[in-house]
């Protein structure tokens, strides 16, 4: 008993004196991301992509020493907010990044940018932050949430499908996904279904889907939900008769490993693909494979680009971030070689970029991956940019 008590007290005491010591001159970058839970691999890829950029120039970004602080938000908005609080109040962080999920971003970002911190989003792009609630300190290097759905919608429309069944979880990002798809798809909707968030068995929905006899299906089910859906879709024999489409979130390279053969041939919208033909990307894919022994996902590419964007701005101001206005304008110029080719920030500081549709194939090494199928948009601007007034 005594010993137990002692351990507890020592634990608490250690905590108080354990504020980690960092080198004084390095610029601190706070990364709040999702590392645990079943969605943890998304944050892991963003972090690894970001770290790759730092390691490639031996601890520096844009020639300036940086210190990357990473913490896990466990996919909980409240926890994310807590970590952001700690980064700002304890570590004096001025630049933040990393959040994977829109709900975490919506809880964390508005507050930190109001407090004068520059936030560069490597993934989440909720519509509010692109439109009405946009902020001069908020940048997004990935996409606005609707973009990849829009690209898929545009492709489905052009490919001549006329009766599409659409499906997403019953939560705001799910509604946005279907709205984004419908913005560019003009045909008939055979059925519009919202499933329970975190649902694992889709037998009931698949039966209804079969009965509706659509000529294509669009679905947005991120993470484990998507794996379940695609597997069950193939088991029900539907993949032979009705083509499946969706955004890239259900078809990243790590997830494809869990889906296997069932996903082959699926069309999905993405701003990046491992086979994109430009020197920056070739170098990135090779370096990532060498460093981590796996093919990078789009999340990794976004983490890498975010690091490069911050690096370019740090270079422009010589690592001096005391003048935030100068750093912000430097960041806005986006003078870096993006792995997705053309990249610039639009008026709301979201990407103006090309978006593709990819096709899932079995690679020569027996692993499943994506190849570019077609370009859906050139220099695409998101739908909310006009609502953004600084």
């Amino acid at each position, binding site marked *: *008993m005594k010993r*137990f*008590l002692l351990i*507890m007290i020592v*634990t*608490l005491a*250690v*905590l*108080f004196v*354990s*504020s*980690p010591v960092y080198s004084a001159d390095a610029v601190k970058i706070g990364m709040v991301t999702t*590392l*645990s839970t079943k969605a943890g691999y998304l944050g892991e890829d963003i972090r690894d992509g970001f770290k790759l950029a730092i390691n490639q120039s031996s601890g520096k970004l844009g020639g300036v020493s940086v210190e990357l602080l990473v*913490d*896990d938000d466990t996919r*909980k*908005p*409240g926890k994310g*907010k*807590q970590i952001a*609080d*700690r980064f700002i*109040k*304890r570590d004096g962080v001025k630049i933040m990044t990393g959040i994977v999920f*829109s*709900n975490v971003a*919506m*809880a964390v970002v*508005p*507050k930190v940018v109001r407090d004068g911190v520059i936030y560069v989003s490597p993934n989440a792009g909720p519509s509010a932050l692109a439109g009405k609630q946009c902020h001069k300190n908020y940048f997004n290097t990935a996409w606005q949430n609707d973009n990849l759905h829009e690209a898929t919608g545009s492709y489905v429309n052009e490919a001549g499908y006329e009766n599409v069944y659409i499906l997403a979880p*019953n*939560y*705001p*990002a799910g*509604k946005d996904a279907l709205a984004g798809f419908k913005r560019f798809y003009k045909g008939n909707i055979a059925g519009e279904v919202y499933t*329970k*968030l975190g649902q694992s068995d889709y037998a009931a929905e698949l039966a209804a889907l079969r009965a509706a006899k659509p000529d294509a299906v669009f679905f947005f089910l991120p993470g484990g939900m998507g794996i379940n859906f695609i597997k069950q879709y193939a088991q029900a024999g539907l993949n032979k008769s009705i083509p499946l489409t969706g955004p890239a979130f259900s078809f990243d390279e790590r997830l494809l490993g869990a889906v296997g053969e069932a996903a082959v041939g699926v069309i999905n919208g993405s701003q990046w693909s491992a086979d994109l033909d430009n020197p920056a990307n070739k170098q990135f894919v090779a370096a990532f494979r060498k460093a981590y022994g796996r093919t990078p996902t789009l999340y990794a590419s976004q983490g890498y680009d975010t690091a490069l964007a911050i690096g370019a701005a740090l270079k422009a101001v010589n690592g001096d971030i005391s003048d935030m206005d100068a750093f912000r304008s430097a960041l806005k110029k986006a003078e870096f070689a993006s792995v997705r080719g053309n990249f610039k920030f639009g008026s709301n500081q979201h990407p103006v970029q090309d978006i593709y549709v990819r096709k899932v194939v079995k690679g020569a090494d027996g692993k499943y991956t994506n190849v570019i199928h077609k370009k859906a948009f050139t220099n695409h601007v998101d739908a909310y940019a006009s609502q953004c007034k600084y």
Partner: protein
Amino acid sequence: MRFIKNRRTLITGASFLFFLLLPLIASALGDAYLVTLFTRILIYALAAVSLDLILGYGGMNSLGHTAFFGTGAYVVGILAFHIQEETLFLSWPIELSGSSNAILVWLLAVLFSAFMSGLIGALSLRTTGIQFIMITLAFAQMLYYLFVSLEAYGGDDGISLWARNKLPIFDTADDTSFYYLCLGFLVIFVFLSYRLVHSHFGRVIRGAKQNLQRMQSLGFPIYRYQLVCFIIAGAGAGLAGALMANQSEFVSPGLLHWTHSGEMMIMVLLGGMGTLIGPILGATALLLLEEFLSVYTEHWMAFLGPFLIIVVLFAKRGLYGLLTGKEVNDE
């Protein structure tokens, strides 16, 4: 006996003094984050004390306590939402707008949580034992899915508040002021609970935990006593929820997830069940442990799990019991 009593007073006094001085310690260390962290600890301590009223004193093993915590938080969130959106909360039969007046909003949060706990308690208390654990869990899950489906209020994404509720004179936006506000509420709630458990009412409730049938045959309307206890605990959790919504300036259905109830139970157990200071120590220990372990390993849950089992098996009396050397439930 005297020795034990002295130790108890000492620990209560020392913890109070520590909480009172914490903002000074934080500014001496130059670490403003400590105040934020300990504000969360105070709020969870309040929730844990309220849970202990039904767990430790009443013997009602509820696995749905977070339902009331979440309800309180959502009252704050929804009323703030209508201020932010400049819409009416109710247009019929009377026109009601949102509010950011702390006194009004927090009072509503407490009342509404009490109402919900009355409703859920009245139905759940018809069962006992495992069934009671399960039905409270089921009601909490029902509310969880209800809030997930409230699209107008952000659904699963929740509501981000633009500012804290406002009080006259007192600046709630200032972290240190808010900290002392939470400390004040905790002290008041602990004091009221102390009076409660040592009253006639408290003796009946504790008697029912020891031996339900005996108390019933003595002619006490136990169901009503338990229900009132359940409602008081629900109101306390509602207040904690309202404070939490203000502290983090954010509410989401995640607050109502069943694992959150589990965490509150852990706090009570860790600190010492059936005591009023124990849950405060438990909340402090668990949240500090979480802060501490998550800095050193991403897999901190792998340590917390076995640690929890060891506490249950071998250190049942919790931190408070260890510190005072006192048996639980003999206050």
